C-alpha cells in the first residue's frame, strides 16, 4: 500500500531546511510558496531517505481568488507519496517556476495547464498551447470562461 506521508512529517523535515517555504500544512498535502517550489521539490526528489523521484501528475484548479497547482510525488523505493500544492494569485498574469528541469515528464503537463488554465511556467523550454490552436482566446478551464 502506498503510504501518504503525513504533512506534519514533511513540514518538520522542510521547516529546518527552508524556513518560510511552507505556507500551510493541510490534512494530507503541503502548501508551498511559489518561489520556494523548485528548492522544495529538488530536496524531496534528491534527498536520501525521501527519494520522491516519480512525478505522478500535475494539475491546476481555479478557485477564483487564486489558482492552485497540485503536484503528486511518489517514492518508488519506499512506496510513499506526497502531495505538494502551490498557489498563484492574480488572473491577468499568473506564473510559477517550471519543474521541467527536475522532471522531463512535467513538460507536456505544464503546457497543458498553460493552454487550458493560463498559468505561465517560468523556465519552461517550449511553453506554447498544446491542445488548442495558436490564437485561441481565453483559457477554457478557468471558471469565468464563456464559450
Amino acid at each position, binding site marked *: 500500500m502506498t503510504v501518504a506521508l503525513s504533512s506534519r512529517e514533511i513540514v518538520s523535515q522542510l521547516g529546518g531546511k527552508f524556513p518560510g517555504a511552507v505556507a500551510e500544512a493541510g490534512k494530507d498535502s503541503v502548501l508551498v510558496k511559489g518561489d520556494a517550489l523548485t528548492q522544495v521539490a529538488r530536496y524531496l526528489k534528491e534527498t536520501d531517505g525521501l527519494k520522491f523521484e*516519480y*512525478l*505522478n*501528475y500535475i494539475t491546476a484548479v481555479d478557485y477564483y481568488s487564486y489558482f492552485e497547482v497540485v503536484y503528486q510525488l511518489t517514492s518508488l523505493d519506499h512506496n510513499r507519496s506526497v502531495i505538494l500544492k502551490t498557489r498563484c494569485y492574480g488572473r491577468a498574469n499568473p506564473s510559477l517556476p517550471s519543474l521541467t528541469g527536475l*522532471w522531463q515528464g512535467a513538460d*507536456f503537463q505544464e503546457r497543458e495547464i498553460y493552454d*487550458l488554465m493560463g498559468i505561465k511556467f517560468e523556465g519552461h523550454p517550449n511553453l506554447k498551447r498544446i491542445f488548442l490552436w495558436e490564437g485561441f482566446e481565453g483559457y477554457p478551464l478557468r471558471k469565468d470562461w464563456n464559450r
Partner: protein
Amino acid sequence: MTTEQLMTLKTEPFVVNIGPVHPSTHGVYRMRVTLDGEVVLDIEPVFGYLHRGIEKLAEERTYTGFIPLTDRLDYMSAMSNNLGYCLAVEKLAGIKVPERAEYLRVIIAELQRIANHCIAVGAMLNDAGAFFTPFLYLFREREKIYDLFEMLCGQRLTYNYMRIGGVGQDIPAEFLPALAKFIQKIRRFISEYEFFLKQNEILLARAKGVGVLPKELAINCGISGPVARASGIKWDLRKADPYSIYDRFEFDIPTGENGDCYDRYRVRIEEMTQSLRIIEQASKQIPGGPIRADVPHLIRPPAGEVYAHIEAPKGELGFYIVSDNSIAPYRCHVRPTSLINLAALRQMVRGWKVADLIIIFGSIDITMGEVDR
C-alpha cells in the same frame, strides 16, 4: 562522380509531417520529424486533433452523468476508465461497494486488459511490417471478449457499465460458463501465438535493441504501465497500492530487462497470462449478493478533494476530483497515461530510421482519446 566525391556530399536536414491522418499514428496524432536522409534527428509531437474538453464537460454534469464520457477517454479500455472514475468518486463520498460487484469489476477490468493488449501487440506487429496477419488473429480473440461484454451491458466499445457504488446490471446466468470456455480457448491461442512469434527472426531483428528506454529516464518522465515495466521498473499499482480487492489474488508482475520494443511486447503477452490467472481465481470465488450499494441518483460528496488511481492496461490512470458539495464536480482532472507515456519518445527515437520510429511509437501503445481528452 567518384566515390570520394559522393562520400563528402552533405545532406540537408528536412522536415516531414507524419500524421495527423496516417495509419501508423494510431489516431489523429502528428509528429514533425526532422530527418537526415532516413535517420531521425528530432521529433516534435503535435496534439489536440481530438481535444473535446472532457475535463470542462465534467464540471457541467452530475457525478453519475460523467461516467459515459470516461468511456471516450481511452476507448480501447473503456471499462478501466469507468472503474478508475467510480473508485475516485467512491473514495470521495465514502461509499462501500458490495463484494459481488468488486469481484465483477476485477474480472471485467482484467478482461479489458487482455482486449487492450490484443490491440497493442497486434498494432505493434502491424507497424513492424507484419501486415494485418497477426493483427487480425488478435482481433478475432478480442471479438470474443467483446461478446462477453455485450452479454453484460449490450455494448461493444463504450460500455457505461460501472456505476458509482457497484456495476450496472448483474451478469446473466450464461456469463460464467462462457467465461470459463473463453479462458480455455485463449490460453491455447496465446501459446500458439507465442510459438510463431517468440523466436521469430524478423520480429527479433526489428524489435530487439530498438528504441531503448533506460530505467532512470522512464522514472524521470513519469512513465507507467507495461512500458515502464519493460524497462525494469517493478511497479504495478495492483501490488504497490492495491485498490478494489486486488490484494486477494495471486499473480506476478512481468518485467523486462532492456527496455526495448521486444521487451514491451513480451511484457504485454505475459501480462495477458497473468490476467487470466486473476480472472480464474475471481470467477471461482465470486459470491452472491447485491451488485450495487444503495446510492442516491444525485450524489453530493462532502467538500474536499481526492486522487484515485488504477493500473489501467496502458499504465497509471488517475482521477483528481475536487468537490464543493454540489451535484457536479468542481474540477475533474484525468491523469492521462497515454500523454505522459509519450514524454520520452524524443530520446527513444533519435538516431533510428523512419521505419524504426514507427515501431517504437507503436510499442508505447497510446490512444489519442486519452492524450487529447
